[in-house]
Protein backbone atom coordinates (compact mmCIF):
# COMPACT_ATOMS: atom_id res chain seq x y z
CA UNK A 1 0.00 0.00 0.00
CA UNK A 2 2.68 2.54 0.97
CA UNK A 3 4.59 1.69 -2.23
CA UNK A 4 1.52 2.54 -4.32
CA UNK A 5 0.86 5.73 -2.35
CA UNK A 6 4.52 6.78 -2.78
CA UNK A 7 4.39 6.07 -6.51
CA UNK A 8 1.16 8.08 -6.94
CA UNK A 9 2.45 10.98 -4.83
CA UNK A 10 5.78 11.15 -6.66
CA UNK A 11 3.98 11.13 -10.02
CA UNK A 12 1.52 13.85 -8.91
CA UNK A 13 4.32 16.05 -7.52
CA UNK A 14 6.27 15.62 -10.75
CA UNK A 15 3.19 16.64 -12.71
CA UNK A 16 2.56 19.64 -10.46
CA UNK A 17 6.17 20.85 -10.70
CA UNK A 18 6.07 20.50 -14.45
CA UNK A 19 2.65 22.01 -15.16
CA UNK A 20 2.41 24.26 -12.03
CA UNK A 21 -1.37 24.18 -12.33
CA UNK A 22 -2.73 24.08 -8.77
CA UNK A 23 -0.56 25.76 -6.12
CA UNK A 24 0.30 28.99 -7.96
CA UNK A 25 -3.31 29.42 -9.00
CA UNK A 26 -4.50 28.94 -5.42
CA UNK A 27 -1.93 31.44 -4.08
CA UNK A 28 -2.76 34.10 -6.66
CA UNK A 29 -6.46 33.56 -6.01
CA UNK A 30 -5.96 34.03 -2.26
CA UNK A 31 -3.97 37.24 -2.65
CA UNK A 32 -6.49 38.79 -5.02
CA UNK A 33 -9.27 37.79 -2.61
CA UNK A 34 -7.47 39.64 0.21
CA UNK A 35 -7.29 42.75 -1.94
CA UNK A 36 -10.97 42.29 -2.73
CA UNK A 37 -11.82 42.11 0.97
CA UNK A 38 -9.79 45.25 1.65
CA UNK A 39 -12.16 47.21 -0.62
CA UNK A 40 -15.33 45.20 0.12
CA UNK A 41 -14.96 45.82 3.87
CA UNK A 42 -13.29 49.21 3.33
CA UNK A 43 -10.78 48.40 6.09
CA UNK A 44 -6.98 48.54 5.92
CA UNK A 45 -6.33 46.66 9.13
CA UNK A 46 -8.28 43.62 10.42
CA UNK A 47 -8.08 41.85 13.75
CA UNK A 48 -9.98 39.42 15.93
CA UNK A 49 -12.92 37.50 14.45
CA UNK A 50 -13.13 39.66 11.31
CA UNK A 51 -9.51 38.87 10.49
CA UNK A 52 -10.14 35.18 11.15
CA UNK A 53 -13.30 35.22 9.04
CA UNK A 54 -11.61 36.81 6.02
CA UNK A 55 -8.68 34.38 6.24
CA UNK A 56 -10.86 31.28 6.46
CA UNK A 57 -13.32 32.26 3.72
CA UNK A 58 -10.38 32.91 1.39
CA UNK A 59 -8.76 29.58 2.24
CA UNK A 60 -12.08 27.78 1.70
CA UNK A 61 -12.47 29.09 -1.84
CA UNK A 62 -8.79 28.50 -2.62
CA UNK A 63 -9.21 24.86 -1.59
CA UNK A 64 -12.25 24.55 -3.88
CA UNK A 65 -9.87 25.47 -6.73
CA UNK A 66 -7.46 22.77 -5.60
CA UNK A 67 -10.23 20.16 -5.31
CA UNK A 68 -11.39 20.95 -8.83
CA UNK A 69 -7.94 20.17 -10.26
CA UNK A 70 -7.28 17.11 -8.11
CA UNK A 71 -8.49 14.32 -10.42
CA UNK A 72 -8.48 16.11 -13.78
CA UNK A 73 -5.33 14.45 -15.14
CA UNK A 74 -6.56 11.03 -13.94
CA UNK A 75 -9.86 11.55 -15.73
CA UNK A 76 -8.50 12.94 -19.00
CA UNK A 77 -5.38 10.80 -19.45
CA UNK A 78 -6.66 7.40 -18.32
CA UNK A 79 -4.97 7.63 -14.90
CA UNK A 80 -7.88 5.79 -13.28
CA UNK A 81 -7.59 2.79 -15.61
CA UNK A 82 -3.80 2.73 -15.30
CA UNK A 83 -4.14 2.67 -11.50
CA UNK A 84 -6.96 0.09 -11.48
CA UNK A 85 -4.84 -2.27 -13.58
CA UNK A 86 -2.14 -2.38 -10.91
CA UNK A 87 -2.30 -5.03 -8.17
CA UNK A 88 -2.72 -2.49 -5.36
CA UNK A 89 -5.41 -1.61 -2.81
CA UNK A 90 -7.72 0.99 -4.32
CA UNK A 91 -7.70 3.07 -1.17
CA UNK A 92 -4.10 3.97 -2.04
CA UNK A 93 -5.51 6.46 -4.55
CA UNK A 94 -7.55 8.10 -1.76
CA UNK A 95 -4.58 8.28 0.64
CA UNK A 96 -2.25 9.64 -2.06
CA UNK A 97 -4.68 12.29 -3.29
CA UNK A 98 -5.62 13.36 0.26
CA UNK A 99 -1.93 13.76 1.17
CA UNK A 100 -1.35 15.66 -2.06
CA UNK A 101 -4.22 18.07 -1.32
CA UNK A 102 -2.96 18.44 2.27
CA UNK A 103 0.47 19.34 0.90
CA UNK A 104 -0.95 21.81 -1.59
CA UNK A 105 -3.06 23.50 1.11
CA UNK A 106 -0.08 23.77 3.49
CA UNK A 107 2.11 25.26 0.75
CA UNK A 108 -0.59 27.73 -0.23
CA UNK A 109 -1.20 28.72 3.40
CA UNK A 110 2.52 29.29 3.98
CA UNK A 111 2.50 32.00 1.31
CA UNK A 112 -1.08 33.23 1.70
CA UNK A 113 -0.91 33.74 5.48
CA UNK A 114 2.37 35.69 5.25
CA UNK A 115 0.96 37.88 2.47
CA UNK A 116 -2.20 38.29 4.54
CA UNK A 117 -0.27 39.43 7.61
CA UNK A 118 1.58 41.98 5.48
CA UNK A 119 -1.48 43.28 3.62
CA UNK A 120 -4.37 43.21 6.06
CA UNK A 121 -3.56 41.71 9.43
CA UNK A 122 -3.39 44.23 12.29
CA UNK A 123 -1.66 42.21 14.98
CA UNK A 124 1.58 40.42 14.05
CA UNK A 125 0.99 36.80 12.98
CA UNK A 126 3.74 35.57 15.28
CA UNK A 127 1.54 36.24 18.31
CA UNK A 128 -0.78 33.56 16.93
CA UNK A 129 1.93 30.89 17.00
CA UNK A 130 1.94 27.96 17.78
CA UNK A 131 -1.88 27.85 17.85
CA UNK A 132 -2.49 29.00 14.26
CA UNK A 133 -0.39 26.31 12.52
CA UNK A 134 -2.08 23.67 14.68
CA UNK A 135 -5.58 24.86 13.70
CA UNK A 136 -4.52 25.15 10.07
CA UNK A 137 -3.09 21.63 10.09
CA UNK A 138 -6.24 20.11 11.61
CA UNK A 139 -8.42 22.02 9.18
CA UNK A 140 -6.26 21.04 6.21
CA UNK A 141 -6.69 17.39 7.14
CA UNK A 142 -10.47 17.78 7.10
CA UNK A 143 -10.44 19.69 3.81
CA UNK A 144 -8.07 17.11 2.29
CA UNK A 145 -10.31 14.18 3.25
CA UNK A 146 -13.64 15.71 2.24
CA UNK A 147 -12.08 17.46 -0.75
CA UNK A 148 -10.71 14.19 -2.11
CA UNK A 149 -14.13 12.56 -1.72
CA UNK A 150 -15.93 15.46 -3.41
CA UNK A 151 -13.26 15.64 -6.13
CA UNK A 152 -13.59 11.95 -6.94
CA UNK A 153 -17.39 12.18 -6.83
CA UNK A 154 -17.49 15.20 -9.16
CA UNK A 155 -14.79 14.33 -11.71
CA UNK A 156 -16.91 11.67 -13.38
CA UNK A 157 -19.91 13.96 -13.75
CA UNK A 158 -20.82 16.36 -16.55
CA UNK A 159 -20.91 19.66 -14.68
CA UNK A 160 -17.73 18.97 -12.70
CA UNK A 161 -16.63 22.53 -11.86
CA UNK A 162 -20.20 23.30 -10.79
CA UNK A 163 -20.71 20.22 -8.61
CA UNK A 164 -17.46 20.69 -6.61
CA UNK A 165 -18.30 24.09 -5.05
CA UNK A 166 -21.97 23.08 -4.63
CA UNK A 167 -20.96 20.05 -2.59
CA UNK A 168 -17.77 21.34 -0.97
CA UNK A 169 -19.12 24.57 0.51
CA UNK A 170 -21.82 23.13 2.78
CA UNK A 171 -19.67 20.11 3.64
CA UNK A 172 -16.66 22.27 4.61
CA UNK A 173 -18.74 24.79 6.57
CA UNK A 174 -18.08 23.15 9.97
CA UNK A 175 -14.34 23.50 9.29
CA UNK A 176 -14.69 27.19 8.46
CA UNK A 177 -16.83 27.74 11.57
CA UNK A 178 -14.41 25.86 13.82
CA UNK A 179 -11.35 27.37 12.12
CA UNK A 180 -12.61 30.94 12.39
CA UNK A 181 -13.83 30.51 16.00
CA UNK A 182 -10.47 29.01 16.98
CA UNK A 183 -8.36 31.60 15.17
CA UNK A 184 -10.30 34.70 16.27
CA UNK A 185 -8.85 34.91 19.81
CA UNK A 186 -5.37 34.28 18.41
CA UNK A 187 -5.59 37.37 16.22
CA UNK A 188 -7.11 39.61 18.89
CA UNK A 189 -5.82 43.19 19.01
CA UNK A 190 -4.12 43.20 22.39
CA UNK A 191 -2.21 39.94 21.95
CA UNK A 192 -3.31 36.35 21.48
CA UNK A 193 -5.86 35.03 23.95
CA UNK A 194 -6.17 31.38 24.91
CA UNK A 195 -6.87 28.93 22.08
CA UNK A 196 -10.39 27.49 22.71
CA UNK A 197 -9.83 23.72 22.99
CA UNK A 198 -13.48 23.02 22.16
CA UNK A 199 -12.97 24.00 18.53
CA UNK A 200 -9.89 21.82 18.18
CA UNK A 201 -12.04 18.93 19.39
CA UNK A 202 -14.65 19.72 16.72
CA UNK A 203 -11.96 19.81 14.00
CA UNK A 204 -10.46 16.56 15.26
CA UNK A 205 -13.85 14.86 15.37
CA UNK A 206 -14.62 16.07 11.83
CA UNK A 207 -11.33 14.69 10.54
CA UNK A 208 -11.86 11.30 12.21
CA UNK A 209 -15.51 10.86 11.17
CA UNK A 210 -14.99 11.83 7.55
CA UNK A 211 -11.67 9.98 7.41
CA UNK A 212 -13.42 6.74 8.35
CA UNK A 213 -16.31 7.33 5.96
CA UNK A 214 -13.96 8.20 3.10
CA UNK A 215 -11.95 5.07 3.82
CA UNK A 216 -15.13 3.01 3.59
CA UNK A 217 -16.82 4.51 0.53
CA UNK A 218 -13.94 5.72 -1.67
CA UNK A 219 -13.50 2.40 -3.48
CA UNK A 220 -17.08 2.63 -4.76
CA UNK A 221 -16.17 5.83 -6.60
CA UNK A 222 -13.51 4.03 -8.65
CA UNK A 223 -15.44 0.82 -9.31
CA UNK A 224 -17.25 0.50 -12.63
CA UNK B 1 -38.38 43.10 20.89
CA UNK B 2 -42.03 44.07 21.10
CA UNK B 3 -44.20 41.06 20.51
CA UNK B 4 -46.76 41.76 17.77
CA UNK B 5 -50.44 41.78 18.87
CA UNK B 6 -52.24 38.43 19.40
CA UNK B 7 -54.39 39.05 16.29
CA UNK B 8 -51.28 39.36 14.16
CA UNK B 9 -49.93 36.22 15.87
CA UNK B 10 -52.99 34.30 14.76
CA UNK B 11 -52.30 35.37 11.18
CA UNK B 12 -48.76 34.04 11.31
CA UNK B 13 -49.82 30.71 12.80
CA UNK B 14 -52.52 30.35 10.17
CA UNK B 15 -49.95 31.31 7.56
CA UNK B 16 -47.59 28.57 8.72
CA UNK B 17 -50.25 25.87 8.59
CA UNK B 18 -51.42 27.11 5.20
CA UNK B 19 -47.88 26.93 3.82
CA UNK B 20 -47.71 23.33 4.98
CA UNK B 21 -51.07 22.55 3.39
CA UNK B 22 -50.09 24.30 0.15
CA UNK B 23 -46.89 22.25 -0.10
CA UNK B 24 -48.73 18.97 0.43
CA UNK B 25 -51.34 19.89 -2.18
CA UNK B 26 -48.59 20.90 -4.64
CA UNK B 27 -47.01 17.50 -4.09
CA UNK B 28 -50.33 15.73 -4.68
CA UNK B 29 -50.84 17.79 -7.84
CA UNK B 30 -47.42 16.76 -9.19
CA UNK B 31 -48.09 13.10 -8.43
CA UNK B 32 -51.52 13.44 -10.07
CA UNK B 33 -49.97 14.79 -13.26
CA UNK B 34 -47.54 11.85 -13.27
CA UNK B 35 -50.47 9.47 -12.86
CA UNK B 36 -52.24 11.14 -15.80
CA UNK B 37 -49.13 10.62 -17.94
CA UNK B 38 -49.05 6.93 -16.93
CA UNK B 39 -52.68 6.59 -17.94
CA UNK B 40 -52.02 8.22 -21.34
CA UNK B 41 -49.04 5.95 -21.99
CA UNK B 42 -51.04 2.90 -20.98
CA UNK B 43 -53.74 3.69 -23.53
CA UNK B 44 -51.01 4.05 -26.17
CA UNK B 45 -49.56 0.69 -25.18
CA UNK B 46 -52.92 -1.07 -25.27
CA UNK B 47 -53.37 0.29 -28.81
CA UNK B 48 -49.95 -1.09 -29.73
CA UNK B 49 -50.85 -4.46 -28.22
CA UNK B 50 -54.14 -4.25 -30.04
CA UNK B 51 -52.36 -3.89 -33.39
CA UNK B 52 -50.02 -6.74 -32.49
CA UNK B 53 -52.64 -9.45 -31.67
CA UNK B 54 -56.23 -8.24 -32.28
CA UNK B 55 -58.68 -9.14 -29.53
CA UNK B 56 -60.03 -12.64 -29.72
CA UNK B 57 -63.68 -11.47 -29.63
CA UNK B 58 -63.23 -9.82 -33.03
CA UNK B 59 -62.02 -13.01 -34.60
CA UNK B 60 -64.80 -15.09 -36.12
CA UNK B 61 -65.57 -17.91 -33.70
Amino acid sequence: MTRAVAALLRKDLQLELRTRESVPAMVLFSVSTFVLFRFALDRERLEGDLAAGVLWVTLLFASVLGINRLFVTEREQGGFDAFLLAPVDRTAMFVAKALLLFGFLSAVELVAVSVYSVLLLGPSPFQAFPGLPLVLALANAGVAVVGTLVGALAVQTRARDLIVPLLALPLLLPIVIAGAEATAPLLAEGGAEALPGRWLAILGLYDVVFGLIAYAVFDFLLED
Amino acid sequence: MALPLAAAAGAYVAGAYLVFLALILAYVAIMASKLARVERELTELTEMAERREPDREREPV
Partner: protein
Amino acid sequence: MYGRGLKPLSIASVAALVGAFALVFFYAPEDVDQGFIQKIFYLHVPLALVALGGFVTGGVYGVKHLRSGSREHDMKSYVAIHLSIILGVATLATGMIWAKASWGAWWVWDEPTLVAFLIVFLLYACYQPLRFAIEDPDRQMRYAAVFAVIAGAFVPICFMSVRFAQAALVHPRVLDQTGGGMPGSMFFTFLVALAGMTLLFVTLWKFELSSKSARMQLAALRRRLS
Protein backbone atom coordinates in the same frame (compact mmCIF):
# COMPACT_ATOMS: atom_id res chain seq x y z
CA MET C 1 -45.78 -4.16 -4.65
CA TYR C 2 -44.89 -1.00 -2.71
CA GLY C 3 -48.47 0.14 -2.46
CA ARG C 4 -49.57 -2.80 -0.31
CA GLY C 5 -50.11 -1.22 3.10
CA LEU C 6 -51.00 2.18 1.61
CA LYS C 7 -54.70 2.33 2.45
CA PRO C 8 -54.57 1.67 6.22
CA LEU C 9 -51.41 3.79 6.41
CA SER C 10 -53.01 6.85 4.81
CA ILE C 11 -56.07 6.52 7.05
CA ALA C 12 -53.80 6.35 10.10
CA SER C 13 -51.78 9.40 9.03
CA VAL C 14 -54.90 11.46 8.31
CA ALA C 15 -56.32 10.52 11.69
CA ALA C 16 -53.07 11.32 13.50
CA LEU C 17 -52.56 14.68 11.74
CA VAL C 18 -56.15 15.83 12.20
CA GLY C 19 -56.03 14.67 15.80
CA ALA C 20 -52.77 16.53 16.35
CA PHE C 21 -54.05 19.77 14.85
CA ALA C 22 -57.20 19.50 16.96
CA LEU C 23 -55.08 19.00 20.08
CA VAL C 24 -52.85 21.93 19.12
CA PHE C 25 -55.70 24.41 18.83
CA PHE C 26 -58.21 23.15 21.39
CA TYR C 27 -56.28 21.23 24.04
CA ALA C 28 -52.67 22.41 24.42
CA PRO C 29 -52.37 25.50 26.65
CA GLU C 30 -50.80 28.65 25.26
CA ASP C 31 -47.09 29.09 25.98
CA VAL C 32 -46.47 31.40 28.93
CA ASP C 33 -44.26 33.95 27.16
CA GLN C 34 -44.71 33.25 23.42
CA GLY C 35 -48.49 33.01 23.56
CA PHE C 36 -50.41 31.88 20.50
CA ILE C 37 -47.37 32.10 18.20
CA GLN C 38 -45.92 29.03 19.89
CA LYS C 39 -48.53 26.92 18.09
CA ILE C 40 -46.24 26.91 15.06
CA PHE C 41 -43.88 24.77 17.13
CA TYR C 42 -46.14 21.72 16.72
CA LEU C 43 -45.75 21.98 12.94
CA HIS C 44 -42.20 23.29 12.51
CA VAL C 45 -40.33 20.90 14.79
CA PRO C 46 -42.01 17.65 13.65
CA LEU C 47 -41.37 18.73 10.04
CA ALA C 48 -37.69 19.30 10.83
CA LEU C 49 -37.32 16.02 12.72
CA VAL C 50 -39.06 13.93 10.05
CA ALA C 51 -37.03 15.63 7.29
CA LEU C 52 -33.80 14.84 9.16
CA GLY C 53 -35.02 11.30 9.74
CA GLY C 54 -35.69 11.04 6.02
CA PHE C 55 -32.15 12.21 5.21
CA VAL C 56 -30.66 9.63 7.57
CA THR C 57 -32.97 6.94 6.09
CA GLY C 58 -31.65 7.94 2.67
CA GLY C 59 -28.13 7.38 4.02
CA VAL C 60 -29.06 3.95 5.41
CA TYR C 61 -30.53 2.84 2.07
CA GLY C 62 -27.44 4.32 0.43
CA VAL C 63 -25.26 1.95 2.45
CA LYS C 64 -27.59 -0.93 1.58
CA HIS C 65 -27.33 -0.07 -2.11
CA LEU C 66 -23.53 0.07 -1.96
CA ARG C 67 -23.55 -3.40 -0.39
CA SER C 68 -26.17 -5.01 -2.56
CA GLY C 69 -26.07 -2.93 -5.74
CA SER C 70 -29.81 -3.42 -6.05
CA ARG C 71 -31.88 -0.82 -7.88
CA GLU C 72 -34.62 -1.06 -5.22
CA HIS C 73 -32.41 0.27 -2.41
CA ASP C 74 -31.35 3.13 -4.63
CA MET C 75 -34.97 3.96 -5.37
CA LYS C 76 -35.88 3.93 -1.66
CA SER C 77 -32.88 6.14 -0.87
CA TYR C 78 -33.78 8.57 -3.65
CA VAL C 79 -37.46 8.86 -2.65
CA ALA C 80 -36.60 9.29 1.05
CA ILE C 81 -34.20 12.15 0.30
CA HIS C 82 -36.49 13.66 -2.33
CA LEU C 83 -39.39 13.80 0.17
CA SER C 84 -37.15 15.14 2.92
CA ILE C 85 -36.12 18.02 0.66
CA ILE C 86 -39.80 18.91 0.21
CA LEU C 87 -40.40 18.70 3.98
CA GLY C 88 -37.19 20.72 4.35
CA VAL C 89 -38.75 23.53 2.32
CA ALA C 90 -41.76 23.41 4.63
CA THR C 91 -39.49 23.41 7.70
CA LEU C 92 -37.58 26.48 6.54
CA ALA C 93 -40.79 28.29 5.54
CA THR C 94 -42.52 27.66 8.88
CA GLY C 95 -39.25 28.49 10.69
CA MET C 96 -39.05 31.86 8.97
CA ILE C 97 -42.71 32.60 9.69
CA TRP C 98 -42.10 31.76 13.34
CA ALA C 99 -39.03 34.02 13.42
CA LYS C 100 -41.04 36.87 11.89
CA ALA C 101 -43.88 36.35 14.34
CA SER C 102 -41.83 36.20 17.53
CA TRP C 103 -38.73 38.32 16.77
CA GLY C 104 -39.90 40.55 13.96
CA ALA C 105 -37.34 39.38 11.36
CA TRP C 106 -37.79 36.77 8.63
CA TRP C 107 -34.43 35.20 9.39
CA VAL C 108 -32.74 34.98 12.78
CA TRP C 109 -29.18 33.74 13.08
CA ASP C 110 -29.16 33.02 16.79
CA GLU C 111 -31.41 29.96 16.56
CA PRO C 112 -28.78 27.18 15.99
CA THR C 113 -31.11 24.37 14.92
CA LEU C 114 -32.69 26.51 12.19
CA VAL C 115 -29.29 27.68 10.88
CA ALA C 116 -27.89 24.14 10.91
CA PHE C 117 -31.00 22.92 9.12
CA LEU C 118 -30.46 25.51 6.40
CA ILE C 119 -26.87 24.26 5.85
CA VAL C 120 -28.02 20.64 5.70
CA PHE C 121 -30.76 21.67 3.28
CA LEU C 122 -28.22 23.46 1.04
CA LEU C 123 -26.15 20.29 0.90
CA TYR C 124 -29.04 17.99 0.08
CA ALA C 125 -30.31 20.43 -2.55
CA CYS C 126 -27.28 19.24 -4.61
CA TYR C 127 -28.57 15.64 -4.57
CA GLN C 128 -30.77 16.03 -7.64
CA PRO C 129 -28.26 18.04 -9.74
CA LEU C 130 -25.60 15.44 -8.89
CA ARG C 131 -27.85 12.60 -10.09
CA PHE C 132 -28.73 14.36 -13.32
CA ALA C 133 -25.06 15.15 -13.98
CA ILE C 134 -24.19 11.47 -14.32
CA GLU C 135 -25.32 9.60 -17.46
CA ASP C 136 -24.43 5.98 -16.77
CA PRO C 137 -27.36 4.65 -14.70
CA ASP C 138 -25.28 2.24 -12.60
CA ARG C 139 -22.69 4.89 -11.79
CA GLN C 140 -25.50 7.35 -11.02
CA MET C 141 -27.00 5.00 -8.46
CA ARG C 142 -23.64 4.26 -6.88
CA TYR C 143 -22.56 7.93 -6.68
CA ALA C 144 -25.95 8.96 -5.31
CA ALA C 145 -25.55 6.31 -2.61
CA VAL C 146 -22.05 7.56 -1.74
CA PHE C 147 -23.43 11.11 -1.52
CA ALA C 148 -26.28 9.93 0.72
CA VAL C 149 -23.80 8.27 3.10
CA ILE C 150 -21.49 11.30 3.27
CA ALA C 151 -24.38 13.75 3.73
CA GLY C 152 -25.98 11.45 6.33
CA ALA C 153 -22.82 11.62 8.43
CA PHE C 154 -22.60 15.36 7.89
CA VAL C 155 -25.99 16.10 9.53
CA PRO C 156 -24.99 15.50 13.18
CA ILE C 157 -21.60 17.19 12.77
CA CYS C 158 -23.20 20.25 11.22
CA PHE C 159 -25.74 20.58 14.04
CA MET C 160 -23.03 20.19 16.66
CA SER C 161 -20.64 22.76 15.21
CA VAL C 162 -23.39 25.35 14.64
CA ARG C 163 -24.77 24.78 18.16
CA PHE C 164 -21.26 25.22 19.62
CA ALA C 165 -20.88 28.48 17.69
CA GLN C 166 -24.07 29.73 19.29
CA ALA C 167 -22.77 29.69 22.89
CA ALA C 168 -25.07 32.50 24.11
CA LEU C 169 -28.66 31.36 23.45
CA VAL C 170 -30.84 34.44 23.16
CA HIS C 171 -34.35 33.13 23.45
CA PRO C 172 -36.15 30.44 25.50
CA ARG C 173 -35.30 26.83 24.88
CA VAL C 174 -38.92 25.99 24.02
CA LEU C 175 -37.61 25.07 20.64
CA ASP C 176 -35.46 22.35 22.14
CA GLN C 177 -36.29 19.02 20.44
CA THR C 178 -36.24 17.02 23.64
CA GLY C 179 -39.18 19.16 24.88
CA GLY C 180 -37.72 18.95 28.35
CA GLY C 181 -39.04 22.31 29.44
CA MET C 182 -42.67 21.72 28.35
CA PRO C 183 -45.67 20.82 30.54
CA GLY C 184 -47.14 17.32 29.99
CA SER C 185 -50.09 18.36 27.84
CA MET C 186 -47.94 20.31 25.39
CA PHE C 187 -45.44 17.48 25.14
CA PHE C 188 -48.24 14.97 24.47
CA THR C 189 -49.61 17.16 21.69
CA PHE C 190 -46.11 17.42 20.25
CA LEU C 191 -45.80 13.61 20.24
CA VAL C 192 -49.09 13.18 18.40
CA ALA C 193 -48.02 15.80 15.87
CA LEU C 194 -44.68 14.04 15.41
CA ALA C 195 -46.43 10.68 14.94
CA GLY C 196 -48.78 12.24 12.38
CA MET C 197 -45.90 13.76 10.44
CA THR C 198 -43.94 10.50 10.47
CA LEU C 199 -46.96 8.57 9.23
CA LEU C 200 -47.46 11.17 6.51
CA PHE C 201 -43.82 10.73 5.43
CA VAL C 202 -44.10 6.93 5.26
CA THR C 203 -47.37 7.16 3.34
CA LEU C 204 -45.95 9.57 0.76
CA TRP C 205 -42.78 7.47 0.61
CA LYS C 206 -44.68 4.28 -0.25
CA PHE C 207 -46.96 6.24 -2.56
CA GLU C 208 -44.05 7.65 -4.58
CA LEU C 209 -42.24 4.29 -4.61
CA SER C 210 -45.25 2.53 -6.10
CA SER C 211 -45.68 5.34 -8.61
CA LYS C 212 -42.01 5.13 -9.66
CA SER C 213 -42.04 1.34 -9.97
CA ALA C 214 -45.24 1.53 -12.01
CA ARG C 215 -43.62 4.02 -14.37
CA MET C 216 -40.51 1.84 -14.67
CA GLN C 217 -42.56 -1.25 -15.52
CA LEU C 218 -44.46 0.86 -18.05
CA ALA C 219 -41.21 1.90 -19.75
CA ALA C 220 -40.06 -1.73 -19.85
CA LEU C 221 -43.41 -2.76 -21.34
CA ARG C 222 -43.11 -0.02 -23.95
CA ARG C 223 -39.67 -1.24 -24.94
CA ARG C 224 -40.89 -4.80 -25.30
CA LEU C 225 -43.85 -3.78 -27.42
CA SER C 226 -42.17 -1.22 -29.67
